[in-house]
Every structure is written in structure tokens, then in C-alpha cells.
């Protein structure tokens, strides 16, 4: 597999860069989260039915720029990803931030998984394959809705890693045709097997033919769930001026990583957890906008916490999945 070799090299290169660009990765993280937040809210408003790949089907959107963003999203993100793979520091730092936070694609509870994450999971799926392959996919995807297949595969991938599934790899595509199989049952939630899927295979983690470039699902599952909350909260940092400061503006102490990912208020004002606690004890208003803290933060955390753990796990594995 020559593409495999190429991707492997690219990955190790990325790991090196990731360390150096840790800081800018954080900034990117904020922007990315903001976009994700926006996008998720769009999907939610559409009852989780309309596929992001078919923006023309969507009902009229309340905000013109948002709808534009939604429409252009899948294709553009894909292109961005390609660009990043070839070029720059920027790209790699983006990667770093992506992998650093599994929350990105965590869907909301009750939403069919792929209606949300199909677009954004392209990014990660094209990451570990070679450029040539990306381009090829590119042209294919213009024509047909390949996102489904991809997500389906990711889903199956996750399942096979998840449970002690006796089925060998090769049987998985077929098994979707056979009713009663567990994979089929869950896969149906995602709608669709189509003709294409026979080409794609889901890899078991211990499969001898499994490409090395595929991320290890078991490892991904070990991400602590508590991280999710912080990153979800970070989604509010939409304004450029409010980029992460290096020290707490209240006590002037340096912000540690936990503090920097802590965003207690919609206005994006950051401070350390210690000062936040002290402020809550006194008057409970955000120093940035002087509005009261509590409700917004509580709501945000609540929704994320309410997510069933299986959804979290699956969404994460989708985002990290790779195509062969």
C-alpha cells in the first residue's frame, strides 16, 4: 500500500509539529469550536433530518451568513484539509487541535450520528491518506453522496472494536444485508447501505491487514469524559478580540491548561477557575460583560453531560476514522 506509507510519514511529521504549535492550536481550537457550535445549532434546528450534504433541501435558514456557511461547509472543509496536508504549520496545528479534543463532533443527544458529523468527519478521514487519494475522492464526492458510506463505515468500525464481535472483517459488508445482525440493526439508525459499500471494509483493531495509519479506537475511548465539557464550553469564543490571554486578568496569575479551556460566560471573557469561584461567591457577574454567570453555564454543561456515553464514544470514533 503506497498510500499507506505516504500517510504514515505525514502523520509522524504532524506529530512533530503539533508540539511546537501547541499555542496556536488552542486559538484554532476556539475558532473551530465556534464554527462547530454554529453548525450544530443549525442541524439541531432542522430536527436532525436534513443531511448537511444536501443544503438545497434545507428549509429557509434564519441567518443568511449562517446558511451560507452551512452550504459551503462540506466541500470547503475538505479542500482546507487537503491544503493543510500539503502545506503548512497552520494545517498541522489544526490537526493537533482536532485530535486534542474529541468533542468536536460529539452530536447532541438523540440526533442520528451522521446527519451531524458527515461533513466534518471528512476532514479527519482524509487526513491519514495520501494527497493523491484525497483528490480522487474529491472528484467522486462531487457526484455522489459518499458521506453516508463513509460514516457507515466509521460506525461499523467503531462497533467491531466495541464489542467482541466474532465476525471477521470480510463479512461485515455482507452482514448489513442480513437482518438480525447487531451491526445491521445499529447501522440502520444511520440509514442507508448502498451499492458502494461493498467496496469499503471496516477493520477490526486486531486485523492483520489493518493499515497502520488507522487510529486506535481503544485508545480514543480512553479520553476522559470530563474533557468534553470544557471543550464544549469553549465553543463560545467567537470573537477574535477575546483570544486566550496568558494570565488571568483578575489575579494576574498564569492560566494553566484547564483555565485556558474554561469559558464561563458567553461573552468569551476568560479567567482562572479560582477567581471564577470567588466571583460566584460575591456577586456572580462576569467581569467582562457584567451579566450574571449561572444560567448559561449550567445549561451548556447540562446538555453535554446528559449525552449517553455510547453516543460520545461513537461520535468520537467517527471523527477519527480513516478510509482505506
Amino acid at each position, binding site marked *: 500500500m503506497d498510500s499507506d506509507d505516504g500517510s504514515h510519514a505525514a502523520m509522524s511529521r504532524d506529530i512533530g509539529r503539533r508540539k511546537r504549535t501547541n499555542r496556536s492550536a488552542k486559538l484554532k481550537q476556539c475558532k473551530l469550536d465556534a464554527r462547530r457550535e454554529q453548525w450544530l445549532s443549525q442541524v439541531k434546528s432542522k430536527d436532525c433530518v436534513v443531511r448537511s450534504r444536501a443544503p438545497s433541501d434545507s428549509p429557509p435558514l434564519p441567518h443568511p451568513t449562517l446558511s451560507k456557511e452551512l452550504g459551503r461547509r462540506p466541500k470547503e472543509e475538505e479542500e482546507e484539509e487537503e491544503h493543510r496536508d500539503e502545506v503548512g504549520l497552520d494545517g498541522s496545528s489544526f490537526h493537533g487541535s482536532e485530535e486534542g479534543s474529541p468533542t468536536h463532533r460529539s452530536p447532541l443527544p438523540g440526533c442520528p450520528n451522521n446527519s451531524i458529523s458527515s461533513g466534518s468527519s471528512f476532514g479527519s478521514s482524509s487526513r491519514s491518506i495520501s494527497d493523491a487519494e484525497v483528490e480522487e475522492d474529491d472528484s467522486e464526492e462531487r457526484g455522489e453522496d459518499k458521506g453516508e458510506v463513509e460514516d457507515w463505515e466509521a460506525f461499523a468500525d467503531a462497533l467491531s472494536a466495541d464489542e467482541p464481535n466474532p465476525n471477521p472483517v470480510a463479512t461485515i459488508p455482507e452482514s448489513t444485508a442480513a437482518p438480525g445482525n447487531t451491526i445491521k440493526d445499529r447501522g440502520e439508525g444511520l440509514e442507508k447501505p448502498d451499492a458502494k459499500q461493498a467496496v469499503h471494509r471496516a477493520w477490526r483493531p486486531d486485523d492483520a491487514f489493518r493499515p497502520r495509519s488507522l487510529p486506535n479506537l481503544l485508545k480514543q475511548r480512553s479520553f476522559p469524559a470530563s474533557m468534553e465539557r470544557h471543550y464544549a464550553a469553549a465553543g463560545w469564543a467567537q470573537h477574535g478580540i477575546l483570544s486566550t490571554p496568558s494570565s488571568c*486578568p*483578575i*489575579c*494576574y*496569575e498564569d492560566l494553566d491548561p484547564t483555565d485556558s479551556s474554561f469559558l464561563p460566560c458567553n461573552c468569551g*471573557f476568560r479567567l482562572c477557575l479560582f*477567581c471564577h469561584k*470567588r*466571583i460566584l461567591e*460575591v*456577586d456572580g*457577574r462576569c*467581569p*467582562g460583560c*457584567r451579566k450574571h454567570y449561572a444560567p448559561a453555564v449550567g445549561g451548556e454543561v447540562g446538555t453535554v453531560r446528559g449525552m449517553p456515553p455510547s453516543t460520545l464514544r461513537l461520535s468520537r470514533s467517527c471523527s477519527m476514522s480513516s478510509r482505506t
Partner: protein
Amino acid sequence: MQASRARLFKEYKEVQREKAVDPDIQLVCDDSNIYKWTALIKGPSETPYEGGVFQLAFSIPEQYPLLPPQVRFLTKIFHPNVHFKTGEICLDILKNAWSPAWTLQSVCRAIIALMAHPEPDSPLNCDSGNLLRSGDVRGYRSMARMYTRLAAMPKKG
């Protein structure tokens, strides 16, 4: 209360480092008590306070920065929002609009801004406020100018 001390130390260092940045403000900490500060601010240009140097006294509560510092003018000033006798300042950010994100430096800037833009509708100095509210800008300016000359300018000769 330990937090307020730490924060004030940091602000002190900041002030030392950025002395040149804002030449209109000079903040000095009391030698023996970090909760007492004095500031010297220059009257903003194109106001009746131009050319004057006004002294402010800061008294900082132990809960700072959760509570605002208490600030008053030590120099006499004729301004609608400053009490003529006590020097008390009527400024929202020193009361209910205080935010812990403000610093002593930024409070000084806010006070300079208040000098340039008086709010005659919430007066502490009624004489001054009434002059402005009745539209007698000229009267207000000349009074303010006079007191600036008397109190805020170094004596000549």
C-alpha cells in the same frame, strides 16, 4: 485578602514597567501600606482642567478586586460629578458597574474620561451641574478653569 495583596503587587510591577506608556497618569503606592495608593493625573486637553495636575487618593478594600477601590480627589476640582468638599467621585464603575477586570490604572483613565465628559444629570456638585444643565457652558468652563488655576496648577514665582 491574600489574593488582593498578590494582585496589587502585580499591578505595582505593571505600573513600574509601563510608566512611559501613559504619561498622563502617575500611580504611586504608599511605602508602608499596599492598600493605599496615590495617583497624579493631568487634566485632559481642551477642557477647563487642562494644565492642571490632580491628586487622587486610592483606598483599596481587602476584597479587591472583587470590590472597587475607593477613590477621591485630594485636589479641589469644580466638576459636576465630584463633591467639592470631600472629593468624592460619582462614577458608575466605582460603584455598581465595577468589574474585577479593571485595574487602578484603568480607573485613572476612566476618571480622566469623566473629567472630559461630565454627567450633569447625576451631580455631586450641584452648582456645577446646574450651570451645565441650564446650558451655561461658558459659566461652567470659567468656574472650572478658575479652580484649576487655583488648586491644580503649580504656583508661579
